[in-house]
């Protein structure tokens, strides 16, 4: 089969999978051209990843919530509230580590309470978490009432949202450890791909032709290298980016490789059938909402640390940004469909839009309209390509 032909077939068959990456590439290229390269500068890319961190973390959790046919509207103000708790604790002299652990623990408990209403009492998640949203908003106001914005002076905490990983030794202007990590990821990626390919060949499954496979490896490796190279030329990897990547990877493995992950998708695909197959639907629901609370706490910490303060309106509309990112990433409200990796890309698409438009000086009103348009376009694309496949 001719090379171009194989590429064509591949694109056509996987248009849904690749569509979002193509869109992301297109958005990035357009903004780079429009801003005379400013968009793709080391500084801006580094900034972009830091901006999207707290939404990306929420989007990962929201993916699972939507996959099991629920929604969580409480995450925005929950993140804000948890951030305010962290700020108060730090102000009152609590060290960083216990503060973080307590906040994460609290977030998980809040998530489980949402899960309790949905799984045990049987409230619709929309209602239960809408109530949660109102309650957390009120709680956040109560917490910041006397002082207004709580300023955080703890360096270590503020470093989470603003700092970069240290370098092991300096060579010129390039951040060496960042490059090293980049190479390690490329290496691990290539090994994993080769292993999968070998396995597929063993079972006589369809695989890419060899030159196509090599090309794919080169292409993806080049992109990873370029991203890390760009970051290494600025301040290196930010802690926000590291945390986002680790969380996404852990959730990716959890959803695709483990029994629990399978069960989550089964519950989303057909809750009745899942129940009759011996899956404890309630337990899964508890888990998913609990994990959402856990991630909300992390999101709250990232945001508060980035601002170096807890504000009375922190968390406003986070939940909708996270939901939008998940939908742009191809999650289906019908349940059972959606990948956390793609939601991360979805968050990146939305963050790129905001970042690019800010660079261009587009007004906030027009920004909202454009973001709405992109959300619709992404979901329309998803639906259209889906019906074609089946």
């Amino acid at each position, binding site marked *: 089969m001719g090379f171009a032909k194989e590429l064509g077939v591949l694109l056509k068959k996987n248009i849904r999978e690749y569509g979002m990456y193509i869109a992301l590439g297109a958005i990035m290229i357009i903004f780079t051209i429009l801003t005379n390269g400013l968009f793709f500068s080391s500084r801006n890319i580094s900034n972009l990843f830091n901006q999207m961190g707290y939404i990306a973390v929420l989007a990962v959790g929201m993916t699972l919530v939507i996959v099991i046919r629920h929604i969580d509207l409480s995450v925005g103000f929950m993140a804000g509230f948890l951030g305010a708790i962290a700020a108060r604790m730090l102000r009152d002299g609590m060290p960083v580590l216990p503060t973080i652990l307590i906040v994460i623990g609290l977030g998980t408990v809040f998530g489980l309470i949402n899960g309790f209403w949905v799984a045990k009492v049987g409230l619709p998640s929309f209602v239960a978490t809408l109530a949660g949203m109102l309650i957390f908003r009120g709680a956040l106001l109560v917490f910041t009432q006397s002082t207004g914005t709580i300023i955080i002076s703890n360096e270590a905490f503020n470093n989470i949202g603003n700092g970069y990983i240290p370098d092991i030794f300096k060579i010129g202007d390039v951040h060496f450890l960042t490059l090293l990590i980049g190479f390690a990821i490329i290496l691990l990626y290539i090994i994993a791909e080769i292993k999968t390919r070998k396995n597929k060949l063993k079972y006589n499954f369809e695989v890419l032709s060899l030159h196509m496979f090599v090309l794919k490896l080169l292409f993806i490796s080049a992109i990873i290298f370029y991203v890390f190279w760009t970051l290494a030329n600025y301040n290196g990897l930010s802690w926000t980016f590291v945390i986002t990547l680790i969380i996404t990877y852990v959730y990716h493995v959890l959803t695709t490789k483990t029994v629990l992950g399978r069960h989550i998708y089964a519950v989303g695909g057909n809750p009745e059938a899942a129940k009759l197959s011996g*899956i404890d639907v309630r337990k899964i629901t508890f888990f998913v909402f609990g994990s959402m609370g856990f991630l909300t706490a992390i999101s709250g910490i990232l945001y508060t640390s980035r601002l170096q303060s807890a504000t009375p309106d922190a968390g406003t509309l986070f939940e909708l940004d996270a939901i939008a990112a998940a939908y742009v990433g191809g999650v289906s409200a019908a349940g059972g469909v959606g990948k956390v990796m793609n939601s991360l890309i979805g968050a990146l698409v939305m963050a790129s839009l905001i970042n690019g438009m800010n660079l261009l000086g587009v007004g906030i009103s027009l920004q909202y309209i454009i973001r709405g348009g992109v959300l619709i376009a992404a979901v329309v694309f998803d639906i259209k390509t889906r019906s074609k496949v089946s």
Partner: protein
Amino acid sequence: MASEYILEMKGITKEFPGVRALDNVDFKVKRGEIHCLVGENGSGKSTMMKILSGFYPYGEYDGTIIFDGKEQRFRHIHDSESVGIVTIYQELAVIPELTVYENIFLGHEIKKGRFIDWNETIVKAKEMLKNLRPDLDPSRKVKDLGVGLQQIVEIAKAISKNVKLLILDEPTSSLNEDDSENLLRIIKNLKEQGITSILISHKLKEVIEVADTISILRDGKMVARLEDKSQFTESNIVKYMVGREIEDIYPKRKKREFGEKIFEIRSWKAFDNQLNRYVVKDASMYVRKGEIVGIAGLMGAGRTELALSLFGNPKEYIVGGEMYFDGQKVKFKSPTHAIKAGFAYLSEDRKGTGLILDFDVKTNMTIAGLKQLKKGLFVNENEEIFVAEMFKDSLRIKTPTIEQKVMNLSGGNQQKVAVAKWLFIKPKLLILDEPTRGIDVGAKYEIYTLMNRLVEEEGMSIIMISSELPEVLGMSDRIYVMAGGKIVAELRREEATQEKIMHMAVDY
């Protein structure tokens, strides 16, 4: 002058990617007759009716449709309904929260000026029901009616649209004997009023009973058109359907020796909180190792409810009585526990609660037994592929790959996937609820063979719930009859007959 035929479909060909669903099919229906269309699953019956109703619009198929003397080019279901062709699908299209009369006139409401004239609507609805079921109160909500009555609402709706040709797709498959008979009587009445019907059915007995003409499809081709009533015999029709003679629908069985009682219930009860009544009132039964026990009974006798209440009680009935399994008194808190103990339950509703249609074959097969595939923290995907391939071969599941979504498989193959799911957990007791519903003759035979193999070679025990009496008689070693939530009788294989069972099932 009007021709003898109300409908002529000529040279109909319809292709889907990779399949020719209909191949140059001619189909003619006489004015005022009951025309039965039969064929195995996947033979093209549904595709043909979807073309006739405009679901597949003109231009997506080849051939011509002549209805009532005029060539028709339906582009939308609305087009076919406007000339008087109405289809009633297996999945009823009634709206549960609305009343009977609202449903009947939905979409063509009777108006006075700009507003709906409800009084006139109710009067008209009553009139319409008088010929069908005079005892049905039109102001009842449809959700409170049984499936049989819901179907009658659909028929009334069709009549209110001045139907000339009524298409019924498997109308009796979810009805009990009474409702089925009632429905067939209504179709005959409609015939006397000059309404032509096309009846699609798997139940050959009823086909033979009502048909004036029988058309038989096989693999997208029209293989026979029977008009002479002397040719209307089951064996004759089956011969055309499958293209080979089936001497014995039920596979040969070895002489069986049974082991000890593996399962027993005493005075089992289940109370449904939502319905506010006992769905199972008094059930005592047992199953021995290596035995197939049939449970016969009419719709609503409580058979599925019994099975669910045993299988970890997912509907959360309030249960009472004693259950023994594998020598121990047990109480399962959820299907998870029941499965762990060695119970398996094949759902009667394959698409609704049996399979995850949007997932692939492999994932559906392993979902109940995923723990067996655990390697450390993860699912061993190589092992999973191996298992799925093994079941695909041993159950002869027709699918291009195990990564095909199950929604794209035929009913019979879907059922095999559902069976594979339970075989994978190697149960001691397998409850099969309507295992052959809606699947074709060939697939049925394979399921029967498999059942025999499981009890004879692997020492499994099977409880088979079935509405098809011949199946119960052909497959069971012992038979329990359920009626009104009670187990009313126990019959040995040798003493059971259809008449005996039916007597017990209605006599309570």
